[in-house]
């Protein structure tokens, strides 16, 4: 077994093993860790992050990056909240709609104007954030209490909270697209070698555009959930979501340089980072040590560090040593 092979195994299964270990740890140590209340709370709130991370996962697999997802979600939540007064469907449509719009702009900036992805999406980050503040008048916008919009956040399908169900469906679809459509495979081929993909006759520009569009749409959808869960459109939310999403994608074993990745392990990455936070809360409850909420980001950062160091040391090919 060579190093590259090992790297792949660690990348794919490492996060799953870590996730299972963390859940086991929590279950053994804390009484209510696997209680229905705790479980539904964790999966309900992390579904927003999961959606954003899914879009990010596709973008990163092409070798790009999308920094605008957080403020797009904020914009989506405002648009959804404002439109929720016309009914559930208009609310959802408005949230996703603005996301698609931002995604389309990103896609055009990257494929047409040839602006580096991180700069292009930095611009739309600012623009989306400004738009959210403008639309909302700088404060949170209450959602309609009569149209039933809130049920998107609070409701459940059997025992699965609706946000979680939405995220699960999105991941199932994402996994299907990635593994069983030509577009999905093209995403990976582009990230693996963009020039070669072009020479192979693959529709590179179109797929890159689609990927940013999807990321925007999913961020908009996350915004809809944000509005429903918080009972309000929140123009100042979403700060740092993009980096959480990137971290989740990387921890999930997707190569940051693109070309290799998995939708399912990205979900595991989101859960791992989310549950880590949950475990810290429980640990504080135990009273042995008091770790403030701040430590979650420290631990997340350390996690990211460990993963990228692992990726770097395992994927560095020994024969490619040119000055």
């Amino acid at each position: 077994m060579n190093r590259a092979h090992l790297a792949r195994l660690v990348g794919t299964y490492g996060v799953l093993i870590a996730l299972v270990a963390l859940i086991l740890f929590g279950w053994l140590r804390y009484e209510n860790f696997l209680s229905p209340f705790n479980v539904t709370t964790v999966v309900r709130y992390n579904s927003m992050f999961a959606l954003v991370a899914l879009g990010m996962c596709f973008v990163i697999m092409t070798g790009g990056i999308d920094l605008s997802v957080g403020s797009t979600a904020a914009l989506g939540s405002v648009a959804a909240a404002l439109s929720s007064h016309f009914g559930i469907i208009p609310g959802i449509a408005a949230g996703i709609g603005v996301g698609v719009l931002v995604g389309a702009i990103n896609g055009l900036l990257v494929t047409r104007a040839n602006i580096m992805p991180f700069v292009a999406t930095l611009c739309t980050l600012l623009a989306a954030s400004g738009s959210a503040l403008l639309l909302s008048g700088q404060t949170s916008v209450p959602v309609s209490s009569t149209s039933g919009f809130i049920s998107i956040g609070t409701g459940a399908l059997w025992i699965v909270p609706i946000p979680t169900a939405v995220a699960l469906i999105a991941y199932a679809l994402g996994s299907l697209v990635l593994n069983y459509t030509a577009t999905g495979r093209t995403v990976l081929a582009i990230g693996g070698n963009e020039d070669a993909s072009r020479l192979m006759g693959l529709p590179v520009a179109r797929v890159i555009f689609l990927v940013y569009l999807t990321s925007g749409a999913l961020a908009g959808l996350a915004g809809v959930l944000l509005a429903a869960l918080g009972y309000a459109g929140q123009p100042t939310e979403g700060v740092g979501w993009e980096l959480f999403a990137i971290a989740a994608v990387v921890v999930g074993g997707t190569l940051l340089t693109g070309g290799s990745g998995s939708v399912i392990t990205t979900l595991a990455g989101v859960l791992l980072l989310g549950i880590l936070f949950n475990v810290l809360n429980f640990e504080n409850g135990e009273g042995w040590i008091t770790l403030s909420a701040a430590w979650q980001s420290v631990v997340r950062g350390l996690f990211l560090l460990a993963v990228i160091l692992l990726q770097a040391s395992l994927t560095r090919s020994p024969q490619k040593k040119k000055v």
Partner: protein
Amino acid sequence: MTVNAPGRRLDSFDVLEFLARYGTLIALGLLIVFNIVFTRNFATLQTLNVNLTQVCTIVIVATGMTLVIATGGIDLSVGSIMAISGALAPLIFLSPVFGDNIALGVAIAMVAAISAATLCGLFNGWLVAQFRIQPIVATLVLFIAGRGIAQAMTNSNLQVFRVPEFQWIGLGRPFGLPVQVLLMVTLVVVTAWLLRRSRFGRSVLATGGNERAAELAGIAVKRTKLAVYAISGFCAGIAGLVVIAINSASDANLVGLGMELDAIAAVAVGGTLLVGGRATIMGTLTGALTIQLVRYTLLANGVPDAAAMIVKAAIIAVAVWLQQQRRV
């Protein structure tokens, strides 16, 4: 492949080239003229002060960022490093150990805070130089963890203080000039000089301009990369101290939030190549001033801050697009 590179290069005057080179400066000039004519009370010392004060920390951070970008890198962690520096300093000078000798406390606090920030930068550089991790990812680690460290140090509590000896760097006015402005000017001048005249500056530009050629010419590429990230951390450390001094308070949740974007924007608008190899500190200063003045102009004329953000986004996109055209 240069299929047909020459051709339109031949004309003596290229509008895009001209705009890419002088666009920012022209924009800045136009903005000033516009304001003198239309904005009430623009040409006053107070307006100047307000604008300079607001732009100061951005310029300080962007100066370090310019060096990082000149090597072809990026530093996302500057905001978090500001938070660390801003959290650490009050912990030290407010501690009872120093009792009466507050001056000593302040001195130690400043040195410690800036050293910690520089160390953070070194850590970034180590990841980039030693492990060849993409800068955007390497600095993401501290971006996430850094603010957490700052929050953990202070238990996320707001640290309020009234220590004139310390706050002098944010509020002091020797010769009627704010200390922070002097600090900014000093940093800008020193760094611009460093970039232009020093061996280190050459190494920075050579590394960003053609890493393989630099390596073959004996330039210490790794050490250069380490150094620019360390300097970026150092600048962020100073900026963190300035911010808390002005606010008379340190809130680890807020200090430096979003600073990486402002700094990168200033560098990009200023005309430094984002892929490295060409950098201008004065350009960065101009870029930061332009962005600041656009915002000020819009606000002074009744446009909400949120709309100003959208304008800022458009300015960055256009600036980078122009830069792109020039390289073709």
